[in-house]
């Protein structure tokens, strides 16, 4: 491993990211579109709901708008980070291959990409966390932002897997948005989840633990430790899988 290569890779990847107009536009437009949608449609009616990772007898009461805003913070972060991760690893993969032929180790490139992704996750989580806090009072803001980082970590690593595996851009976007939409954008919604007939399936989806940790931090004083621990475990699993696929794809075949 060569630190100069990793740092050069990181700086070039970040330059390429900020020069992509679609990335900057999505960072501004998507959260604003979600927020406007909630602001225009959700009511202030107080709704009781249960959280799957807490005791069954515990009911949380909050306004429909507040719940929707927090849920959309999770969905937004998941969507944005997985899309960016897919872009990071998939676009220019042929040029990255040339870098490997010229002397880069595939892991050096992967580490540069991962560091870029972590910076992106960090920035998006803080940005969306603070943005949501402007509309709804969050009980534990730092833990809430940490929870958003966890959903970013899990879905970012999922994006890395898809980006390493799938060559076609459209196919990649479809696979990322399909799972993100079903999981983080629908099934993990506490208002849907609380009434679901079969929530076992929902518990096995990747966004389950991170979204639980975000909602616990936003509305309760309960510990997020378990949810955070399992989120990191799932994210790390995805990360290892993506590293193996990327290495196998990029290594020199000699």
């Amino acid at each position, binding site marked *: 491993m060569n630190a100069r290569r990793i740092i050069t890779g990181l700086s070039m990847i970040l330059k390429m990211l900020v020069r992509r107009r679609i990335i900057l536009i999505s960072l501004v437009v998507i959260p604003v579109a979600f927020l406007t949608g909630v602001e225009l449609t959700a009511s202030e009616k107080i709704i009781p709901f249960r959280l799957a990772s807490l005791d069954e007898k515990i009911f949380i009461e909050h306004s429909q708008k507040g719940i929707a805003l927090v849920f959309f913070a999770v969905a937004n972060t998941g969507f944005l980070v997985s899309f960016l991760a897919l872009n990071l690893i998939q676009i220019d993969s042929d040029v990255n291959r040339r870098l490997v032929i010229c002397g880069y180790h595939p892991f050096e490139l992967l580490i540069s990409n991962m560091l870029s992704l972590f910076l992106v996750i960090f920035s998006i989580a803080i940005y969306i966390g603070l943005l949501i806090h402007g509309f709804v009072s969050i009980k534990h803001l730092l833990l809430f932002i940490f929870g958003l980082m966890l959903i970013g970590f899990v879905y970012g690593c999922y994006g890395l897997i898809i980006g390493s595996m799938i060559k076609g851009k459209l196919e990649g976007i479809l696979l990322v948005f399909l799972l993100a939409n079903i999981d983080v954008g629908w099934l993990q919604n506490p208002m849907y989840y609380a009434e679901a007939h079969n929530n076992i399936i929902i518990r096995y989806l990747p966004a389950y633990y991170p979204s639980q940790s975000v909602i616990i931090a936003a509305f309760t004083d309960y510990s997020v430790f378990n949810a955070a621990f399992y989120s990191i475990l799932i994210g790390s699993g995805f990360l290892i899988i993506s590293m193996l696929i990327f290495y196998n794809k990029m290594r020199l*075949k000699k």
Partner: protein
Amino acid sequence: MILKAENIAKAFGNNKVLKNVPFEMGPSSLYGIVGENGSGKSTLLKIIVGEWKSDHGTISVKGRLGYCPQRTLLFSRLTVEEHFRYFAAAYGIEKTALFSRTELLMHHFNFKKYRSERIDRLSGGTLQKISLAIALLHQPDLLILDEPYNGFDWDTYLRFWDYTNHLKTEGCAILIVTHLITEKERFDKVYNLSDGQLT
């Protein structure tokens, strides 16, 4: 020998593109490989540089390898200078050496004025020059060029041969793959890749 390839075989399904191809190159040599479209020229190069695995056979390369692929593989959102910095990190070239080599290549191939331009704002011919310059940046011992002068104007074509001859006298082995060779006398040997074999 700088490059020694023994019994290289590669098939895509039932299509046997390379059939036990032997190939070797020593220092200060300039070889060409010609062949029809789809004859397996690029496949052979991709196997030599390690991009693809052969079904059979061994490859041995001694020294630094420079490779200019057929497609100009460059990052569309980086500038010319940023490319040199990125690839210099890959080659392990120090900053001071990088500056002098970059200046020399930009001057020789006449694209100095584009040094701060992003790749997606440059013409195809300029991209080809930059791609070639990247392959030359670390002063390779073995230079492999896949259709290198497609898109070059006449002046750049001549400059290309100037530089190639200079490299050859310095001991570099140069392998050029193209579908069309107009000046055979420039080469030490020209092979024809046909029906999976070099003749």
